[in-house]
């Protein structure tokens, strides 16, 4: 039993059930605010530049990027890993907190899942275009073909990655969508607009809220939640094996899978925090996304930040303890010091030090500071991937192979394009989809009352 006297109210403002629907669905019926159009225009411009850069990449080739024979993985792979990491929050949030029966998740999980779907979509573009001939990408499917049949290498992490990312995209999208079906039905039954009634009615798939529907719906969430929990751990572990099974110094370590999974959840939670603070401010969702929600996410971030710091120090210690001169060189002369020292220390400061400010209640309770720190974590996690990809590749075993790397304008544009794509997705989500799971919030509203449900009169 959830004790309001101990844990605080889950929903502020003593709302009736229909008030909950009205408040959450208000932005869908309201006139589109002006800032939305401005933000959309900027995002579309970024997205458009990204499309142009993709066009250049496809029509001319990978030569338009800054990558070379030594540094074959540039921004494309950095950004891929970064986006996938952000995409982990949706599943981590919904599934882990569902399994742990955390009732406060209901206000945030919808936004986290939406973010997952868009972020994984952004991530998938990078390896696709990095292939060089994206129109032949279907060669990676293991299907009986006329080339032998020549099958793919099932031992290759790159193939595992392909399976994992496509499965993750499909699964998180369907999990997200089916969670929304009851809410679409609520819009259908409460809206006054005929067009909305028809459109949302279609997407509601004929949902009525009958007991036979809810019974199976619960079973479905249980099954999907249970198996997708495995995915949270497996997808980023697989991404880490892309690195860990190669013999580059700084990559070939056993710490990689847990290090990547924790890092992914870290950046994902930070992005969730960025989004919900925006949602709370822009749409006035303060009653649903309460101070204690923000507080809870901040506390989780302190914990994960400590794990990240430990992981960084462990890597450095192991490089020294291994006695391998290549590992020593990579960590001590090419990360902590050397050409890429700035990126290393930016990573360390943003991920391991700055989030420690969350220990202070004064920091956790000021939304604008929380917002800024969440942005810092996102930047720090980007630098972590830069650090891993670039420092190991630029200077590996043979000094004759050493090369520097800096991104071309096309690569930068590609990344900016995905940022635009992400914010377009998020803005559409804010505008057209209930950004908080209405039916789930209703189901926890009874816990706002101190009395046991049985004694209710």
């Amino acid at each position, binding site marked *: 039993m959830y004790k309001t006297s101990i844990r605080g109210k889950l929903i502020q403002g003593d709302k*009736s*059930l*229909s008030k909950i*629907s009205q408040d959450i669905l208000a932005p869908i019926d309201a006139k589109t605010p002006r800032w939305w159009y401005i933000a959309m225009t900027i995002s579309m411009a970024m997205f458009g530049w990204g499309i142009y850069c993709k066009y250049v990449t496809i029509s001319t080739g990978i030569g338009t990027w800054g990558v070379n024979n030594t540094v074959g993985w540039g921004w494309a792979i950095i950004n891929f890993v970064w986006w996938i990491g952000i995409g982990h929050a949706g599943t981590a949030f919904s599934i882990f907190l569902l399994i742990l029966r955390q009732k406060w998740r209901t206000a945030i999980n919808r936004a986290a899942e939406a973010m997952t779907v868009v972020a994984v979509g952004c991530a998938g573009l990078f390896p696709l275009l990095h292939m060089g001939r994206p129109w032949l990408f279907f060669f990676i499917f*293991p299907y009986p073909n006329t080339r032998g*049949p*020549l*099958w793919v*290498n*099932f*031992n290759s992490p790159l193939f*595992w990655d392909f*399976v*994992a990312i*496509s*499965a993750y995209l499909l*699964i998180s999208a*369907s*999990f997200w969508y*089916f969670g929304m079906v*009851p809410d679409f*039905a*609520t819009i*259908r*039954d*409460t809206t006054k607009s005929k067009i909305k009634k028809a459109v949302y*009615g*279609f997407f*509601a*798939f*004929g*949902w*009525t*809220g*009958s*007991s*036979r*529907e*809810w*019974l*199976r*719906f*619960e*079973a*479905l969430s*249980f*099954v*999907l939640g249970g*198996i*997708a929990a*495995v*995915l949270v751990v*497996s*997808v980023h572990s*697989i991404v880490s094996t892309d690195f860990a099974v190669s013999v580059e110094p700084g990559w070939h370590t056993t710490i990689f899978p847990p290090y990547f999974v924790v890092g992914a959840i870290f950046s994902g939670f930070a992005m969730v925090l960025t989004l919900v603070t925006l949602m709370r401010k822009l749409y006035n969702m303060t009653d649903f996304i309460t101070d204690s929600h923000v507080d809870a996410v901040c506390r989780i971030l302190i914990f994960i930040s400590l794990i990240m710091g430990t992981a960084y120090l462990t890597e450095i210690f192991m490089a020294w303890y291994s006695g391998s001169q290549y590992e020593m060189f990579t960590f001590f002369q090419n990360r902590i010091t050397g050409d890429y020292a700035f990126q290393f220390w930016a990573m360390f400061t943003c991920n391991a030090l700055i989030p420690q400010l969350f220990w202070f209640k004064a920091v956790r309770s000021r939304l604008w500071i929380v917002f800024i720190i969440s942005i810092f974590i996102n930047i720090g996690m980007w630098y972590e991937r830069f650090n891993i990809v670039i420092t190991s590749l630029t200077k590996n075993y043979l000094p004759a192979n050493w090369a520097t790397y800096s991104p071309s304008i096309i690569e930068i544009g590609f990344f900016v394009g995905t940022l635009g794509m992400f914010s377009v997705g998020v803005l559409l989500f804010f505008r057209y989809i209930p950004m908080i799971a209405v*039916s789930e919030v*209703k*189901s926890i509203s009874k816990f706002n009352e101190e009395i046991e*449900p049985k004694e*209710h009169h």
Partner: protein
Amino acid sequence: MVGVFDNEFDLVKAFEKVKAKGVKVDEVYTPYPIHEILEGMGKKTRITHAAFFYGLFGALTVLGGMYYAAVISWPLNFGGKPFNTFPSFIVVTIVATILIVTITTLFTFSARAQIFPGKAAKIVHPGATDDKFVMVLKSGEAGFEAGEIEQILKDSGASEIIK
């Protein structure tokens, strides 16, 4: 007869009283799942069992497919490793099985709960997806006495009774 309630506690109270009378409740419509009702309706779902068998089938198919491709159809020598590199097949097996279970379970849900694109909703009470808890009783059921049932619904705090 349709009883409309404003909160789940009144609904559950009425539901249990009606059941105690031996009258079968035809259907209950609620804005969110209520476990007393889901259990009380006496329906069982085997979706979880179905999902287990989908998983078993999926895992065997994926593993078998990889074995066929890598060992029987076109064995390739990767650095002298055995053709059947079972441990590294497991990774793809897990992920692809999860995908297969998800998709097949979704279709099963769609078929069993009859939730699919293009279905027109049969709405008993438009408030059932918003803030009303609706209980539907059929007059033809055994032990159904309109006056008695109406009294139970009223006593439990029904805000509206539609005959």
